[in-house]
């Protein structure tokens, strides 16, 4: 997760307007999910992989690894859809019959499974595109502009910041403990870990108090108002989005028999 985050700040597409990237990712996601065939998801997957690796300059290895995260989960669920067990051996495409029970794959099921698999992978690649190229703070700003309730965007802003503060604290405590042999045996590990959690809890409390004080010192009045660096709006990008999405939508429509 930290890795994704660092790439979001250092990729070649970081200077592109976050609204354009979000729009592109979301439309493609919708097109991919509503596709009746496997062609659109395949194109989407290739498109996103190309953009992430060649345009954003993120190593292909990283993208592959990220795709593998949902992979095992996807394979499992796809297998349960593809395989069926029945007492009636008819209609199977590949099957094995043992003691009157037929285990196998029916052709329409295989089709559904493949479609589901590719659609999910395509959708995931859209989200990765957004996550790898757009910093969280920018996404929050986009949500704010889309009139998502302030309470949600403010919470996201603070939570996002504090995930890192606490992770750093936890890592520091863990390191301090290990360097004093806090994790040499299972029993000691349990004790150290419980201390880590209680220390962290105390920190959360103190830190939140300090944060409130620091914000109050800067005239906080109950609403977090911030400015975000302006990004240039690029008409070409909008045309590009339309140019890419229209054919995909067309393919979807043609595939709907």
């Amino acid at each position, binding site marked *: 997760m930290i890795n994704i*985050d*660092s790439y979001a*700040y250092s990729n070649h597409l*970081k200077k592109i307007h976050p609204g354009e990237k979000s729009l592109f990712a979301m439309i493609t996601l919708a097109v991919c999910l509503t596709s009746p065939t496997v062609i659109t998801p395949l194109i989407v997957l290739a498109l996103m992989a190309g953009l992430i690796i060649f345009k954003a300059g993120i190593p292909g290895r990283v993208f592959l690894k990220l795709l593998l995260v949902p992979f095992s989960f996807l394979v499992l669920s796809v297998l349960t859809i593809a395989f069926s067990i029945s007492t009636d051996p008819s209609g199977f495409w590949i099957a094995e019959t043992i003691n009157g029970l037929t285990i196998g794959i029916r052709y329409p099921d295989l089709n559904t499974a493949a479609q589901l698999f590719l659609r999910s992978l395509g959708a995931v690649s859209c989200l990765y595109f957004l996550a790898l190229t757009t*910093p*969280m*703070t920018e996404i929050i700003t986009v949500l704010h502009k889309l009139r998502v309730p302030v309470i949600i965007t403010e919470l996201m*802003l*603070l939570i*996002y*910041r504090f995930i*890192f*503060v606490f992770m*750093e604290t936890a890592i520091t405590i863990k390191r301090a403990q290990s360097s004093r042999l806090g994790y040499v045996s299972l029993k000691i590990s349990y004790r150290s870990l419980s201390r880590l959690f209680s220390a962290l809890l105390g920190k959360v409390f103190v*830190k939140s108090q*300090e*944060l409130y*004080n*620091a*914000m*109050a*010192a*800067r*005239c*906080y*009045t109950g609403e*977090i*108002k*911030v*400015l*975000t*660096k302006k990004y240039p709006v690029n008409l070409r990008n909008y045309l590009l989005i339309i140019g890419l999405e229209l054919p995909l939508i067309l393919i979807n429509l043609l595939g709907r028999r």
Partner: protein
Amino acid sequence: MPEIILEAFNLDYSYPDGTKALRTINLKIEKGEKLTILGSNGAGKSTLFMQFNGLYRPNSGSIKYQGQAISYKNKPLIELRKKVGIVFQDPDSQLFSSSVYQDISFGPLNLGLSDQEVEARVDQALIDTETTDLEYKPTHLLSYGQKKRVSIAGVLAMEPEVIIFDEPTAGLDPRHAREFMQLLKNLSDEGKTIIISTHDVDLAYSWSDRLVIMSSGEIIAQGEPGELFLQPELIEQADLALPWLLEIYCGLVEKGWFPTSTPLPKTREELLLILPLASMNISPIPKDSK
């Protein structure tokens, strides 16, 4: 008579857990002065700073801004905080946003300025603290000193009358510490009142108009830096050390390189200026003739 801008009057403060952090503090701060607060760890410096813009409320006594005891109601507190800014000791508790730009824009936006004005101020603060190239980095990937500079920028952008810095140079490398002191000089020339706390005695000695020394919640001395540092008992009591300039100066006077009446050098240059040249071939003044 110089104008008193901030004043602590008979201030007492205990933390909820019973720690008596401040005891009968009386301190007057003049408009436009450069004040340094020295004191060992736990002396109460940070606690005192929190009193100055109403973040903590004293148990007894009061804080006065321009002669008026401050009110702890919402509106007047905000007015006070527009005038008195604090840069906290720990940048991690001050930075609330992961975006450098967003964090710096927070304060000036709360002043009710226009977006354009805020942008101009943020850009200026980024330049003043040399953080322009960090603008696109998230705060969690910054080093400690970089975070410190961003948190300083966040308060500078509000342009308060009185700026309080809690250990501003701790964690800064020598170059950035020096540049920060230059920034403080510029702010001071603009007429801002500046209060800092530090453990750096050299800095305290060279930079400040006036020193305040705290020990276990009390002010044990205040006055001219030269005057205070030449009192060995005081230095001992407050766990301080002598600035190197004074140490050398005292040594040279001791060895008779110049008379005791020589004014104290405030900077390295001043010390070099009063040092006699070796080519002048003067031998040390004999000890008994002094």
